[in-house]
């Protein structure tokens, strides 16, 4: 499914954080989100939607939504946050999960509510911290968090198209489940040896389908910005696509999971690659296999 957004939802601010996460994932994300809001000079009271896309919840929390814990911490940090008199407030917080690709779907949801005028600002956050409860098998991700603030902009088109495709024939390639065994809770992560290859193939196919449907080509993409995971994805994608277009992701000695795309967004903004581009294709690939694209027009 893809569509064209009528008005521009643009990136206002991004923050990332791979500090120690002793106080838990919700606190780490909230600190990051607070910095993101401060960078933009926006009060939490002005945000209409807060979506958390982190895959792993704090100590296997099932309810409430982790976003509401983050919401609470943001309010604690901003005691002056304004609430309209006689109303409940205007912020809806919830979690959106789609493996490592939830960020793009969350951007799509927020773009919808911004376009319809129901909200002015959307705050999308993410983060993963190894759960402290129970045993954990094959969890290799670094503690990390990221946040992006988006809002409407009349002078820039911003996010103009989204597309997500799934390849359930590879749903067993990467899985993460809890199991009850030996009298305790185990988090079991599994990744097949084929995952990287299949992720690259699925991404290439989805991009081609997107181009075919939208009558676009590589000439219409100045930069591809992808999530870091799976490691080696960018190199293999470049080989597969055989293109000269620049493909960029966050490069570091840590493995970032659900915040990967926001780390890469932050990277291209810091390196000033973002402002020199007009058309950026944001890409995530994750469990499912699910490939999500967001096509961004950065033109003034």
């Amino acid at each position, binding site marked *: *499914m893809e569509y064209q957004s009528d008005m521009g939802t643009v990136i206002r601010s991004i923050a990332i954080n791979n500090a120690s996460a002793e106080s838990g994932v919700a606190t780490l994300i909230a600190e990051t989100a607070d910095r993101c809001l401060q960078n933009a000079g926006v009060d939490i009271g002005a945000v209409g939607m807060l979506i958390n896309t982190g895959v792993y919840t704090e100590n296997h*929390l*099932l309810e409430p939504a982790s*976003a509401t814990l983050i919401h609470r911490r943001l309010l604690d940090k901003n005691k002056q946050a304004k609430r309209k008199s006689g109303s409940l407030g205007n912020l809806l917080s919830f979690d959106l999960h*789609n493996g490592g690709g939830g960020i793009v779907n969350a951007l799509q949801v927020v773009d*919808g509510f911004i376009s319809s005028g129901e909200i002015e600002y959307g705050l999308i956050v993410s983060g993963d911290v190894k759960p402290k409860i129970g045993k954990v098998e094959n969890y290799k991700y670094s503690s990390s968090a990221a946040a992006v603030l988006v809002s409407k902009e009349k002078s820039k088109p911003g996010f103009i198209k989204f597309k997500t495709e799934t390849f359930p024939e590879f*749903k067993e390639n990467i899985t993460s489940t809890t199991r009850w065994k030996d009298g305790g*809770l185990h988090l079991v992560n599994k990744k097949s040896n084929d995952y990287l290859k299949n992720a690259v193939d699925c991404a290439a196919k989805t991009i081609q389908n997107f181009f075919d449907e939208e009558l676009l080509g590589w000439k219409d993409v100045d930069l591809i910005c992808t999530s870091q995971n799976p490691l080696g994805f960018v190199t293999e994608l470049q080989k597969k696509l055989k293109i000269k277009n620049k493909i960029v992701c966050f490069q570091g000695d840590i493995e970032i999971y659900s915040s990967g795309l926001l780390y890469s967004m932050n990277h291209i903004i810091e390196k000033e690659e973002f402002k020199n581009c007009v058309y950026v294709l944001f890409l995530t690939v994750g469990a499912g296999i*699910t490939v999500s694209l967001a096509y961004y027009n950065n033109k003034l």
Partner: protein
Amino acid sequence: MNYGCNIESIGIKLPDRKLSTSEIESRLNIANPLKLELLTGISNRRVCCENEDSLTLAVDAALDCLSHSELKAEELEMIISCSISKYVNGLSHCYEPALSLLIKQEIGNSKALNFDVSNACAGMITGVHIANNFIKQGRIKNCLVVSGEYISGLIGNAIKTVDSLFHPEMASLTVGDAGAAVILTQTKRGEAGLSVSEISTLGRFSHLCTGVQSNNCKGGIMKTNMKKIHDLSIKNAPYVVENALRSAGLRMSEIDYLIPHQTAKISIQSGARVLYRYFNEEPGEIVYNLCETGNTASTTHFATLYKYLCEKRFKAGDTVMLLSFASGLTFGAIVFSMNGISERYGNSN
């Protein structure tokens, strides 16, 4: 908004196995009976058997929904799974892939945009809120919002510890398993359908009800500060309803059916009294659907709608308000008018 949005069909799945409140009470290690059935209005709840879990409940509800729909599975453009519990293959919680992907595959759809939303008992209401926005803008023509809740594991764990009505795990004794699904479709702008969808979160109170997977016992633990949540719900209910009525351009007396989140009879009655005092008038009916299913978390509103549809209670043109109170704390209201759906479930009244 360029289009309207309509509830096109609803489906549910209830496990066959029943667990009575009297059986639960008999297993509590306390001297004086709690009179749970009297307080909650819950006589029975359904609980999963072997081979049933959150995924199977959601898939069966989605298939039931499709059986009442004019759409085929392959025509669905968006699928949002809203379960709190994401148990697959028994009590194995699935972090990834997304439950919505597994549901999509099981029902035979390949192209829909799918993702999972988690917002406690407001999950399906949040899913409908998102679908309504996408449909009314013309981004999609239809959406399946679905949830499967396998939460009866909470009961066994609570039985071991509950010693009074005020115990933090008391609310766990009221839950039951269920799956529910709703298909929303696009209509012409101005046509009868879903007119209001409003949800907000009072994040300051997110700590008042928490459910976790536990390392000490299989099936999870839920702890609730029932009194504080009840007080906040009672305090805020008039605002939620008033805002929704204002947006819909309706009076309270013009709501034919008000369906609150189904927690306990005593709580719903208390809320009804507060609303009456505030508005000085009543809706046609405040709906209880607790007796045979208990609190089925995110599925309660649509399980209740389904029951009333099957009992031929609705007629075309009836106005319904779904009122949501959930951990978070999340408050929301959805207002819609009954149209073709009441006939398709056999109502000729």
